[in-house]
């Protein structure tokens, strides 16, 4: 015999001003199974909750309906309240008479009240069919995977490892360090980037809780939060890292020279190489596309030179597996290829370069030893034009967003140019100056005053060649005049983009990404480091363009989430998930196809009890299922059913209207 209690909330004026809450109570009392109905100003408050608890006990209620705001607000509150009164927390139903009634029907109190009564009646009918559900406990593997060894991945790895949780750090290139290793100085402090980064890199390499797997990629992820299995492809380096001492003799002797990616093609590296001097691990790898031995079977000098016999031309790619409980994705960014800007002569003019190329040039460890030069003739430039918003904020070229960091690093570039070439003159074409961080506005002012850079408000229209110079033409929108600058060198602040293979990685991990390839957070404001898949977190530019302080913050936030996840040996999970009624399942596997969380797998069961013949049916992985109901919708044989939203509950609701 059902004994339902209904509790109608005024929500201050939010509901009561537009819905006659007294009438709702009176109408509700008329419903057959309702044994108790009351209204109150603020049902979510302590006295409000007390009301509910008391009513449950005094009236021996079997289920509770709270008519109030959206369940997103206080479902947890009321579930806890009724469980404190001895009722299973899932015998609660919320009738949303705020968002679904008072807030949207403010002009018609009569109809709003009638609708509220309907919503309550539906909730009552549903609650009668509610079953007692219990939270599921899922075991947890206390190890974290961090994908990407830039500053984001490094920070997350160190924070997690410092909490004595083992970390597997996978990095695509031969060394960790990422973009920060390519920077000269960082804003707003003008700290030497490598100087502040390399100690962290060493910490990673020596940390007892971090397993660093360089020159590798994640190729597969199975499982669910707390219980993931990751497949990692260790690319063949042809160098035995355990015996290699990093002496560098092999690189010195190698005869093959290839454009150096680390310096964006402005100098050469060898076929056996370490990307930069402070590389961690400091072991070289062989570039299989250019090595003479691996492509033509000739040379072999590195092997002959190596005193430790660490070169092994027969090495193969290797797939290894690790079990982890959580994943932090920190794959960083790449820069926009400005070739579509034909009006800037990108690709035609050697002296039109990207900001990262300029950064490498002013770096002491860079291709020119720290002096900016004109790539066309090697001369030192005097007039340097910096163009901001190349690609960014340009819908015609396909990118609407702002890349956030370029205004700051362009001011920094003006400073670096001024330090390196004292009689230089920087011209900066801008649309806005975005300097919102701590100390950022002060830094821009400092740059403007110390370097006497000429800031010109206007997008550059065209660049053309005049003798040795490049003429940069645009409108100075502040004085409304066309200006042409005779430049020696032009630096383009190109847009920050997601890595090209982000979508592939996202698909392998089962998470979503946006139209630009940036990985999607679960909620932009309240859940910025989580993804739609429990246990997978995002840090750094892989999620959206950001600077180093924000990257480090986000990485630490991921670490905190991971530590929270691993705080106990088991994890509690919402039981409102799907399960398959075995007898009804025909094994058509449509549910597997539609499940967005890859939460359903096949299982073999005997066709009849005590039979040895097997048949295939579907099985829901309780840990992964998020309760979306897609399987229930597509199942033709009523096998898939969603706890908390069974057919009976829903039909009851419909019949109640």
């Amino acid at each position, binding site marked *: 015999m059902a004994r339902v209690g209904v509790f109608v909330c005024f929500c201050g004026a939010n509901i009561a001003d537009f819905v006659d809450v007294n009438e709702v109570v009176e109408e509700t009392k008329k419903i057959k199974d309702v044994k108790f109905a009351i209204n109150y100003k603020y049902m979510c408050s302590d006295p409000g909750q007390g009301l509910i608890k008391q009513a449950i006990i005094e009236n021996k209620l079997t289920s509770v309906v709270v008519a109030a705001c959206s369940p997103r607000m206080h479902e947890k509150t009321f579930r806890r309240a009724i469980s404190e009164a001895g009722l299973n927390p899932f015998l609660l139903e919320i009738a949303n008479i705020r968002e679904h009634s008072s807030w949207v029907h403010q002009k018609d109190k009569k109809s709003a009240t009638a609708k509220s009564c309907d919503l309550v009646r539906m909730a009552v009918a549903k609650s009668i069919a509610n079953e007692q559900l219990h939270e599921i406990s899922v075991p947890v593997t206390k190890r974290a995977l961090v994908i990407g060894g830039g500053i984001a991945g490094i920070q997350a790895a160190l924070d997690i490892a410092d909490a004595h949780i083992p970390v597997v750090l996978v990095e695509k290139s031969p060394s960790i360090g990422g973009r920060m290793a390519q920077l000269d100085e960082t804003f707003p402090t003008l700290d030497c980037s490598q100087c502040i980064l390399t100690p962290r890199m060493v910490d990673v390499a020596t940390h007892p809780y971090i397993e660093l797997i360089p020159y590798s990629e994640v190729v597969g992820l199975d499982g669910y939060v707390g219980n993931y299995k990751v497949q990692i492809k260790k690319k063949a380096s042809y160098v035995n890292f355990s015996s290699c001492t990093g002496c560098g003799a092999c690189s010195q002797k190698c*005869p093959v020279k290839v454009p150096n990616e680390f310096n964006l093609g402005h100098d050469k590296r060898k076929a056996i190489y370490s990307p930069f001097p402070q590389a961690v691990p400091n072991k070289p790898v062989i570039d299989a596309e250019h090595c*003479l031995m691996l492509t033509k079977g000739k040379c*072999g000098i590195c092997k002959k030179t190596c005193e430790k016999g660490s070169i092994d031309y027969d090495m193969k790619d290797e797939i290894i597996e690790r079990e982890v409980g959580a994943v932090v994705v920190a794959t960083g960014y790449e820069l926009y290829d400005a070739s579509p800007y034909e009006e800037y*002569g990108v690709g*035609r003019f050697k002296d039109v370069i990207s900001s990262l190329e300029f950064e490498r040039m002013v770096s002491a460890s860079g291709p020119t030893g720290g002096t900016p030069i004109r790539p066309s003739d090697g001369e030192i430039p005097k007039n340097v034009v910096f163009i901001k918003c190349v690609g960014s904020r340009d819908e015609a070229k396909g990118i609407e967003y702002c890349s956030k960091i370029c205004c700051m690093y362009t001011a920094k570039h003006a400073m670096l140019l001024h330090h390196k070439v004292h009689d230089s003159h920087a011209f900066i074409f801008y649309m806005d100056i975005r300097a919102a961080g701590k100390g950022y506005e002060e830094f821009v002012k400092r740059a403007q005053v110390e370097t006497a850079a000429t800031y010109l408000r206007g997008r550059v229209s065209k660049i*053309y*060649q005049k003798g040795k110079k490049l003429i940069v033409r645009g409108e100075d929108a502040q004085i409304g005049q066309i200006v042409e600058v005779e430049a020696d060198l032009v630096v383009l602040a190109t847009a920050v983009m997601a890595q090209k293979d982000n979508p592939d990685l996202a698909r392998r991990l089962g998470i979503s990404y946006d139209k630009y390839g940036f990985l999607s957070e679960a909620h932009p404001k309240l859940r910025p480091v989580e993804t739609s898949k429990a246990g997978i977190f995002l840090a750094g530019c892989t999620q959206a363009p950001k600077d180093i302080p924000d990257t480090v913050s986000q990485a630490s936030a991921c670490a905190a989430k991971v530590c929270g996840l691993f705080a106990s040996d088991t994890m509690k999970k919402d039981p409102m998930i799907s399960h398959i009624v075995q007898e009804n399942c025909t094994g058509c596997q449509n549910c597997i196809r539609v499940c967005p969380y890859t939460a359903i797998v096949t299982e073999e069961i005997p066709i009849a009890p005590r039979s040895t013949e097997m048949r295939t049916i579907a099985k829901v992985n309780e840990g992964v299922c998020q309760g979306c109901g897609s399987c229930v919708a597509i199942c033709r044989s009523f096998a898939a059913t969603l706890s908390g939203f069974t057919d009976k509950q829903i039909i009851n609701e419909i019949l109640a209207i």
Partner: protein
Amino acid sequence: MKKLTYFPGCSAHGTSEEFDHTLKLVMKSLEVELDEIPDWNCCGATSAHVMTENLALALPLRNLVLAETLHNDTMGIACASCYARHKVTKYELDKDPVLAKKINTTIDDGTYHGSVEVKSMLQFVYEDIGIEKIKSLVKKPLTGLKVACYYGCLLTRPKAITQFDSPEYPMSMDRIMEALGATAVPFDFKTECCGASFSISSSDVVLSLSGKILEYAKASGADMIVVACPLCQSNLDMRQPGVEKLFHVKLNLPVMYFTQLLALAFGHDQKDLMLGKHIVPVEKALAKIGKEPEKKEEIKSKKTVESEEAK
């Protein structure tokens, strides 16, 4: 034998007669039969669209309707301005059938169906004929001649409408010239407007704009400028003495149509090219054909060492 519906445009019998004439020579060599639209009318050029909305669409519409009666799938237009007007009209009317019906009421030559594609002659030669065919017909290669290919603004812009080549740095004409054996110099001003229709009403604007183009072409090392538009040719050639006077420079940069060079390379004699029509004489530049190119300084490329020897 390919058939191409042909719209000559008003200047074909006047200021750009040499374009029309050499175009016909070239089409013969390319085995393309030109089917001229019967009793075509002026497209309205700049004035119609500057001053009116409906008339600007009506004038080209009549030609498009007449073109449909010839049952060829493509209409080729020599003058870039006429091409732009017809192309824009087709684009607007295909997009908005209600508008098409409305404009159709101004004529009684037929109903518009949108069945004929509109191409500029440059586009037709580059896309429908192709570089390989052009190469195969070259009898007198133009080696030794350095040309600056000037496209003007209407052949490749706006991109959504023309859908041909690049709006900023097109290379179709350059490639055709290279196929003929000439050297097309890098030319940053190839799509800067010459001043177009301001030739008569605001000549000083033309002198300034065309002047910049001429100076830049000369600085790029070109012997001549090659064009595909009568208005561009007129501004750069006929107004060149005016430019020289205003800017106190000596240019002597002849301006030829790409069809004249095609005809020359295909074996026609110089006297068939109507060279007498040019204000700036072309003979001196043409004399460079067949001569030894100036010795360029050899740029030593950086050795990418691939040593085969073990040290």
